[in-house]
């Protein structure tokens, strides 16, 4: 069997000045999202096709990370197919419910049957030996207290459906822009009804929102310190900061730093890259946070579908986001896909659009690995190559640090 170096691989600059055969570089596979350090010598062996000179253990690592792939592999096709199928598989296992703060009364909730929650029903009717259900209940209420109450009732009702011994569930409570003043007083001291918790905070531009962000962060930080389970359960905080300048965030940086040190907390900061923020701006903000010592994910939250769904008028008080996301993406998608056509073949773009696959071309791990599909043009997507390696090096340097206790 013959092999080749994957086209979806990034190779960093040399990690020391000498740049001789023993000098190491980061080789990052955008297909698997994994990077390793290898020497110039091994890179030369790969480029020259001398695979059998590579020791077994190293060879298996390189092929496991899909840095070395079969020579005849149609990589673009494989990447798109896997993404598509993974998305379809994931949708099969998820029930994402959005509860709006309309009249979802206790009696309504207690009258629910699986028929009222089609995504859940669909899941329950699947045929497989072990089922894992990821159930997200997003409560779009301003009041934390009301949200908690709703959530507990919803959970009890769903449990009463009796999904069978083999089903594993995770009940995640999601708050979207809640009022969190006095948050500590509403969250239970112990034995919360949720298995995981998410907060979404979006800050449209304006001075008063920078202040609001600071208050929000302070309340969150105080709650995390006081309630032991908030240091244990999966907790994610998503800050959509489109329009806020990095200078406007100066006061918030210390609290971001504090929060980012919690092991169980995933901090997502989105500068609205998908909505017009330039790659340079995003990068300069990342560097600013790096200097302040803050670990965060600078990637759009996977759950930004809650934001997307919020933009549409929904008639019912219970929205099944599992399918709502699919339909809603087309509205956002057209503009994005238009941008992509500058770099990629029309049929590639069409294929992505058909399956609702987004190209996160400079923000998330890209589908294309930064390469264009244009037949007459071999150049790389500029946003990608300028930005992405910086991100990889950034995450690599984080990985070298030991987290503080």
């Amino acid at each position, binding site marked *: *069997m013959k092999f080749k170096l994957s086209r979806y691989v990034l190779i960093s600059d040399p990690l020391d000045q000498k740049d001789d055969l023993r000098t190491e570089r980061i080789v990052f596979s955008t297909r698997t999202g994994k990077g390793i350090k290898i020497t110039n010598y091994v890179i030369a062996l790969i480029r020259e096709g001398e695979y059998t000179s590579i020791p*077994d253990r190293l060879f298996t690592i390189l092929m496991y990370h899909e840095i070395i792939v079969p020579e005849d592999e149609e990589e673009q096709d494989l990447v798109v197919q896997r993404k598509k*199928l993974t998305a379809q598989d994931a949708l099969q296992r998820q029930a994402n419910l959005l509860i709006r703060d309309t009249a979802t009364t206790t009696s309504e909730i207690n009258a629910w049957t699986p028929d009222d929650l089609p995504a859940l029903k669909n899941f329950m009717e699947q045929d497989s030996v072990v089922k894992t259900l990821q159930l997200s209940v997003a409560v779009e209420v301003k009041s934390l207290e009301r949200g908690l109450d709703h959530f507990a009732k919803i959970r009890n009702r769903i449990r009463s459906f009796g999904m069978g011994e083999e089903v594993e569930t995770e*009940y995640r409570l999601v708050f979207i822009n809640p009022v969190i003043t006095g948050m500590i007083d509403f969250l239970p001291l112990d034995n919360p009804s949720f298995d995981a918790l998410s907060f979404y905070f979006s800050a449209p531009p304006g001075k008063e929102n920078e202040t609001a962000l600071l208050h929000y962060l302070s309340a969150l930080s105080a709650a995390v310190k006081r309630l032991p389970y908030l240091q244990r359960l999966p907790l994610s905080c998503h800050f959509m900061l489109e329009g806020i300048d990095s200078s406007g965030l100066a006061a918030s940086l210390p609290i971001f730093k504090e929060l980012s040190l919690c092991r169980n907390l995933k901090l997502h900061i989105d500068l609205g890259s998908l909505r017009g923020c330039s790659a340079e701006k995003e990068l300069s903000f990342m560097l600013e946070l790096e200097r302040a010592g803050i670990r965060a994910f600078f990637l759009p939250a996977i759950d930004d579908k809650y934001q997307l769904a919020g933009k549409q008028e929904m008639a019912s008080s219970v929205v099944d986001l599992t399918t709502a996301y699919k339909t809603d993406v087309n509205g956002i998608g057209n503009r994005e896909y238009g941008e992509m056509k500058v770099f990629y073949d029309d049929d590639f773009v069409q294929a992505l659009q058909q399956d609702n696959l987004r190209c996160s071309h400079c923000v998330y791990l890209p589908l294309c690995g930064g390469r264009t599909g244009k037949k007459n043009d071999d150049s790389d997507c500029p946003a990608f190559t300028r930005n992405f390696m910086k991100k990889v090096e950034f995450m690599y340097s984080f990985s070298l640090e030991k987290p503080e206790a």
Partner: protein
Amino acid sequence: MTKAKPVQSKLKWNKSSLIETDLYIRVYLAALNSLMTPEDKQTLFVVSKFFTDGAAETGRGNCRVADYNFRRGEAYYEAIDAEKQVLRRMINNVYHRSKSFYHYRQGDFDEAIRLVETTLQNNRVLEKQGFGFLVLDRAQQYYNLSRIYFTKREMEQGLSVLSGSISFLIQGKSKQLPDLNDHLMKEYSADLKRMRYLLLCQMLFDTAEQLMRTEDKDTFLKNGKLFYTEVIEAAKEMLILSPEEAGLKKWLLLLKDFYAGKYTAFKKKATAYLEKEPNFYGERPVAILQQYLARA
């Protein structure tokens, strides 16, 4: 996570965890190096990956992605020269195991069983061609087979297979699974002896912990007897190849009194054991014995 049963209590599909240890890799690569060309070895690694990915995706519930990986791997397998028998068989060792798991998760138990049986036959051929260590892989395949039987609620069948496999690991032969009696365990290399002991402990304690979770007393005793009867018999003739293994033998023989209903004798001996005997395998055997004491 809200679970009806904690994840740890489920018998995990054994793919096996030994593959992760340096010991297994060393033994495996040593055999490959003496029996395959470097090019064929690398082909083996790359093609196997499609199948191990398929199994991993199946484990995550991603059936479509799993299926995609299997089909790609199958295409590469077909393209391999028919003369390369050893390479093809070695790939099949991974393929049949992974695909069996896939069918198992899809609820297609007959096909899952057929593929385990194919692995067993395939392994026997490879063992004669220089891959002797695969007899331990066969023991693990029986473990996987038992898991299928349990899911089908065929407890007796499952416990019989499991008991046969573990008895083989204990004394080097099995009454219920005579096909395992191909080799002489006394003649194993040092590495292989070590692998055998680790596998034995892992399979035995996984099973012991699983059986312990049966709350109903009658079922607990019934299943226990079905499993432990042959195992305890085998323990009397246990092949002891290191000092730790003597500890395991003593531990196993304690259970004889329990399952014979001699609870007073059992409590006395077990308590004395816990006070005097050193740990031979960390906390697990201790914890299990304490649970037996609570039930006596």
